[in-house]
């Protein structure tokens, strides 16, 4: 054996106890464990984020609220979760709603147009539109709740996640203070409407 070979052998030999100890002491990583409170919370937090149609609609709600100003900007974050909770109860109780996927996609489309066109509806009309869509979004989340790892943690997760998406939308909507920001937001609204239109066409079977 050459000198280099012996050195290499010694190095490998010295590493062996560490490797053996590592193997013996190894425990499963459980990195993708969706169990218990942690699993329920994680799936609840991710549920509104992983559906793009849900995500853009919730952000659009926040932006539109910011565009409408008071009282919409402060009534929205207080009442929306409650109305969504009503939809969630319908989902938990397995009460069927007509064409839920179409309505979720339609919500992104309509809210995107409202943002893009700076639609200034009376507060009651705007609240009624948002409330109808909130019920359908809540229904979609609520129907997943009974099958989750921990229903309470799932509920906490998706309510918090939805509320934070609204907050993002309101924060983006504050750009309306500047003319360039206003144009940017209208462009964003148009993008949301386009995506919503795509999801709407997809849910109606018009595109694959």
């Amino acid at each position: 054996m050459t000198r280099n070979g012996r050195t290499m052998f010694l190095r490998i030999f010295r590493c062996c106890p560490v490797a053996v100890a590592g193997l013996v002491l190894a425990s499963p990583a459980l990195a993708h464990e969706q169990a218990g409170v942690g699993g329920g919370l994680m799936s609840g937090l991710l549920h509104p984020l992983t559906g793009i149609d849900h995500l853009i609609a919730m952000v659009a709600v926040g932006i539109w609220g910011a565009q409408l100003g008071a009282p919409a900007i402060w009534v929205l974050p207080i009442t929306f979760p409650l109305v969504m909770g009503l939809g969630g109860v319908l989902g938990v109780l397995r009460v069927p709603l007509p064409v839920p996927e179409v309505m979720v996609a339609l919500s992104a489309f309509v809210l995107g147009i409202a943002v893009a066109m700076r639609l200034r509806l009376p507060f009651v009309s705007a609240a009624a539109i948002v409330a109808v869509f909130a019920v359908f979004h809540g229904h979609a989340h609520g129907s997943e709740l009974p099958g989750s790892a921990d229903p309470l943690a799932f509920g906490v997760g998706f309510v918090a996640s939805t509320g934070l998406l609204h907050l993002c939308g309101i924060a983006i909507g504050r750009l309306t203070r500047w003319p360039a920001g206003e144009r940017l937001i209208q462009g964003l609204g148009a993008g949301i409407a386009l995506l919503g239109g795509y999801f709407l066409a997809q849910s109606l079977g018009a595109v694959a």
Partner: protein
Amino acid sequence: MNMTFRRGSIAAAMLLAQANSADAHIVGARLGDFYAGALHPLTNLQDLILWGAMGLLAGSHGAAKGRWLVVVFPLGLLAGLMLGRSFGIVSTAPTADAAMTLVLGLLLASAIRMPIAQLCALAFALAAIRGAANATDLGPETDRALFAAGLTCAGYVVITLIMALALAFRGTETTASITWRQITLRAFGGWIAAIGLMMVGFGLAS
């Protein structure tokens, strides 16, 4: 150098020889039941939500009204624990817990001003119910006094801290206008109410 090394070695050997066990883990000194009582509610999401909601509600009412809960809430936990143990009430129905969450959330979201007596009665009732529910961990070998002390201390710490946080966040009501801080607290109420509402539905469905 050698002399210094020798002296150092002797000093180290003497220190090692005189070392005693640290007894840092006083669980073995019969204080484990105290920690069991303190940690039992903190490892339960239902307790965390309800206690948190109660602390936020008390904080939203201001220091003058909220400070009563620093005493009332831990006493309610203690009373509930004792009643739960005496009458064999081991846990509340999930729907009842969810309904309490809904009520607390609605009270916080609507920003209804409650009189001190009502606020204290609500806090006492909630604490008593949760205290009774926490009696489930009382085994025959559990030191009840230590468990009760732990639970009461946890209640005192949690309610005081959350109330203080809410008070500091909310600030003083210098103007009649609605500030974004108050809206944030009320939005939390909306979240809590929504969770309670869905859990009521879940309780009815299951």
